[in-house]
C-alpha cells in the first residue's frame, strides 16, 4: 500500500462520513457545513487525480459560492434556525433500501468489469491550456461553451425574477 493509497482511503472515509452526516443531521446549518467538508474531500480526490484545475475550481465554486448560497437560503427560509422535529419523511427506509441496492448494483458492475489500475499516460503539463483551446475550438466544445454562458444568464434572470419582488424588501 503506497502513501497515495493511504491518503485516498483517509479522504474517502472522511468524505463519505461527511456526506452521510449531510443527509442525516437534523440541524440544517450543520448539514451545510458537513456538505462543505464532503465537497472539500472531493477536491482532494481531484488533486489525487492530477486534475489541479478542478481541485481549485471545486473549492472556488462549491465551497466559495454554492455552499455560501445554501447557508444564505437556509437562513432566509427559517423562522427559527434550530430545527425541531423529524427532518426525514416517513418513507426514509424506502430511500435507504433504494440507495443500498443502487450502491450494491453499481459495485457489482464495477467489480465485474476488468478495469485498469494504471493510467494510460501522464497528464500533459499543458492540460489547462488544452482545455482552454478545446472550449473555444469550433471543432471542439465552442457550442457548449457559449450555451453554458447563455444558461448562466438564463439562470440568473430566472432566479432574480423568481426571488425578487419589490414589495418584499
Amino acid at each position, binding site marked *: 500500500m503506497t502513501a*497515495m*493509497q493511504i491518503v*485516498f482511503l483517509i479522504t*474517502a472515509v472522511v468524505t*463519505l462520513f461527511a456526506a*452521510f452526516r*449531510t*443527509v442525516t443531521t437534523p440541524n*440544517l446549518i450543520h*448539514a*451545510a457545513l458537513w*456538505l462543505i467538508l*464532503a465537497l472539500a474531500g*472531493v477536491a482532494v*480526490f481531484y488533486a489525487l*487525480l492530477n*486534475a489541479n*484545475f*478542478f481541485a481549485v*475550481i471545486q473549492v472556488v465554486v*462549491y465551497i466559495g459560492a454554492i455552499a455560501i*448560497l445554501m447557508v444564505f*437560503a*437556509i437562513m*432566509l*427560509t427559517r423562522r427559527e434556525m434550530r430545527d425541531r422535529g423529524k*427532518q*426525514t*419523511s416517513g418513507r426514509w427506509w*424506502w*430511500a*435507504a433500501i*433504494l*440507495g*443500498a441496492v*443502487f*450502491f450494491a448494483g*453499481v459495485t457489482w458492475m*464495477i*467489480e465485474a468489469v476488468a*478495469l*485498469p*489500475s*494504471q*493510467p*494510460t499516460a*501522464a*497528464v*500533459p503539463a499543458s492540460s489547462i491550456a488544452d*482545455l482552454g483551446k*478545446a472550449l473555444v475550438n469550433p471543432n471542439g*466544445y465552442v457550442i*457548449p461553451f457559449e450555451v*453554458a454562458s447563455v*444558461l448562466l444568464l438564463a439562470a440568473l434572470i*430566472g*432566479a432574480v425574477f*423568481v*426571488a425578487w419582488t419589490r414589495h*418584499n424588501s
Partner: protein
Amino acid sequence: MIPLNWYLIVAAALFSIGLYGVLSRKNAVAILMGVELMLNAVNINLLTFWRYRAPTTTAGMAFSVIVFAVAAAEVSVGLALFIAVYRRFKTIVTDEIDLMKW
C-alpha cells in the same frame, strides 16, 4: 497508483448517499444538498475516466466544466424557487407544500 475502481466505488457510495438524502429529506434545501452530492459523484467519475483512459484529450475535463455550470444554474434557480415558495407558504418542508395535491 490508486486502482481505478476505488474511485468508482467511492463515487457510487457518494451517489447513493446523495440519493438517500434526496428521497428521505423533508426540507427542500436539504434535498438540494443531496443533489449536489450526486453531481459531485458524477464529476468524480468523469475526471477519473479522463485521468485513467484519456489524459491527453480534453473531453473529460470539458464535460466536468459543463457539470459545474449546470450545478450552479440548478442551485441558483432551485434556491430562488424555494425562497419564493417560502414567501408564499411560510415553509419549505416539501410535505406541507400540497397545493397541487389533487
